[in-house]
């Protein structure tokens, strides 16, 4: 994989070129999809959110040009989308179509349960936990990415863990 910052072309041109985004997609798309998949109720939703992340990035007026800035910036967009999605999904309950029932996605009871529990807790805590534990970002990196104080991020992590444990147990999971 060619890393983006190895492309030696002027930044202003780079962020507009199809090749740039093609590379960005190949480089960061799988991670972003995996990130979304941890929280989204289905693969399709995760794909949708990941794609929307890139669409917004490509349409953004200001895009990072310095090496290494793209990845956290994409995660920031993705996190905002994820939080919006998690908030919205709480506000609606869907009544299935008669005869068009969606088969529940079951790719592992424990995995599903974790995903479900993550969606039960506050979206800000969910994203902080997944960024920290699943994506491996440190509290400082998350703080910079989301433009929060490090204290705020740590607080979300501490509360998120507690909320996750409660939600996981409430849903029948055993620790």
């Amino acid at each position: 994989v060619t890393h983006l910052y190895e492309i030696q072309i002027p930044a202003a041109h780079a962020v507009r070129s199809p090749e740039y985004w093609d590379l960005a997609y190949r480089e960061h798309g799988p991670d972003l999809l995996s990130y979304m998949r941890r929280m989204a109720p289905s693969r399709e939703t995760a794909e949708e959110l990941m794609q929307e992340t890139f669409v917004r990035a490509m349409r953004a007026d200001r895009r990072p040009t310095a090496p290494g800035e793209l990845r956290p910036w994409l995660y920031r967009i993705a996190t905002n989308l994820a939080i919006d999605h998690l908030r919205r999904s709480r506000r609606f309950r869907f009544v299935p179509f008669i005869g068009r029932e969606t088969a529940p996605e079951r790719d592992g009871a424990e995995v599903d349960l974790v995903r479900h529990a993550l969606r039960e807790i506050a979206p800000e805590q969910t994203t902080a936990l997944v960024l920290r534990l699943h994506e491996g970002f440190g509290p400082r990196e998350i703080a910079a990415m989301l433009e929060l104080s490090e204290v705020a991020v740590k607080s979300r992590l501490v509360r998120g863990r507690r909320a996750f444990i409660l939600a996981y147990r409430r849903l029948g999971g055993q620790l």
Partner: protein
Amino acid sequence: VTAHAYDLIGAARDEVLDDASDAFLRAHLRECADCRRYERDVSQADRLVAQREPYPSMPPFEAIRRHGERPSWWLIAVAASAVIVAAAVGGLALRERNAAGQAGPTRVLGSTLGGTSLGASPDDVLRALGVPDRRSGEGTQWVYERGIWVLFSGRPLGPSSVVVSIQAWRGSAAQTEEGFRVDTGAPSDLRDIYATFDLDEQPRVGPQRPDPFRLLVARGRDRDGRTVQLRATFSEGRAESLELSRTKDPGEVRLSGTHALDPFAVSACQLITRAAPRAGYATAAAVVSTHADDPKEQVPPDRELNLRLCAYGEDRDWADPHLNWATRPVSRADAVFVLTGSRTLPGQSAWKADGDGRWIARACAPGHQVVAAPPRCHVALAVSVGPYLFFVYERDDDAARRLADAVVAELP
């Protein structure tokens, strides 16, 4: 056990504690069984959240690139111009047809709508579709969600009902809308409805539908606290259907109708809705539809059909036979009554008329203008719009003629 210990246990997973805190936590854990248990839980929870699944397969980048690329302003301008020109050309063509003496109540509208699939702005599309200027009391609300622009717009029908339209755009590829009536049962302000509408979409893959389609759900409340829910399904970027649910009592949701969403259908809806008041109808819900072949959707014989009764929400019980109109593509080959200016007797229809002899199929010109009726309808006026046929039911022949004239007068 103090909350402080819980916080420290959590914090210790993310950072190196200072010496004092570390000492405090160690000492506390030695004494407190609850906190030791909590520490194990946290460790286990971290492991669970950190568990990585196999990377899902990546969708191709091409579709994202198309959506992500910002259209040039000149392209938008060209597209908008194309829509307006298409509408103008369509209007001219119709006037020429009128001048050539092709009289009759129906016209072909397809040419006026040819531009709606272009990448024009929503307002351009609205203008091309001939949406009337907003009047006092009308309202609109834009919602942007997950790359889809949705416009709720509506106008009052009477003291206790409104017509609401939904239009959705995804990129520049799909535009959909539908006009439907919402009976509020009490004096309503559109703002009451719009203020609480929200939107969500959910990908769905049904067992009978291998292709993924999207679902848009908008839910609101009318002034009486009843829930109004709109559900639109999309397939491959095109709207597939709209379902309106409305509670008759707070907390109860029932389906009351199904319509396919299509710019052509919308145009016909708007056309008839505008025309009906001029034909003397006090209420003018759009009743533009083809009738599905499904026997379950046949109109019950004792149902009196006219414009007022064909509005949504008339069915008293979902389990009973009901007015469930659905638009669907109909080709000329499907319409057996492609006749010229004549009435048609029952028993000659692919729709299996039941022979009660009271329905009329009317066609006004060969080729483009097709009128036909499903069984048990007394009089039907059909408008051929693009690839679709739209039927308007009226039991009184003279009223149908008046309506037909009004429709013609509304044509561009």
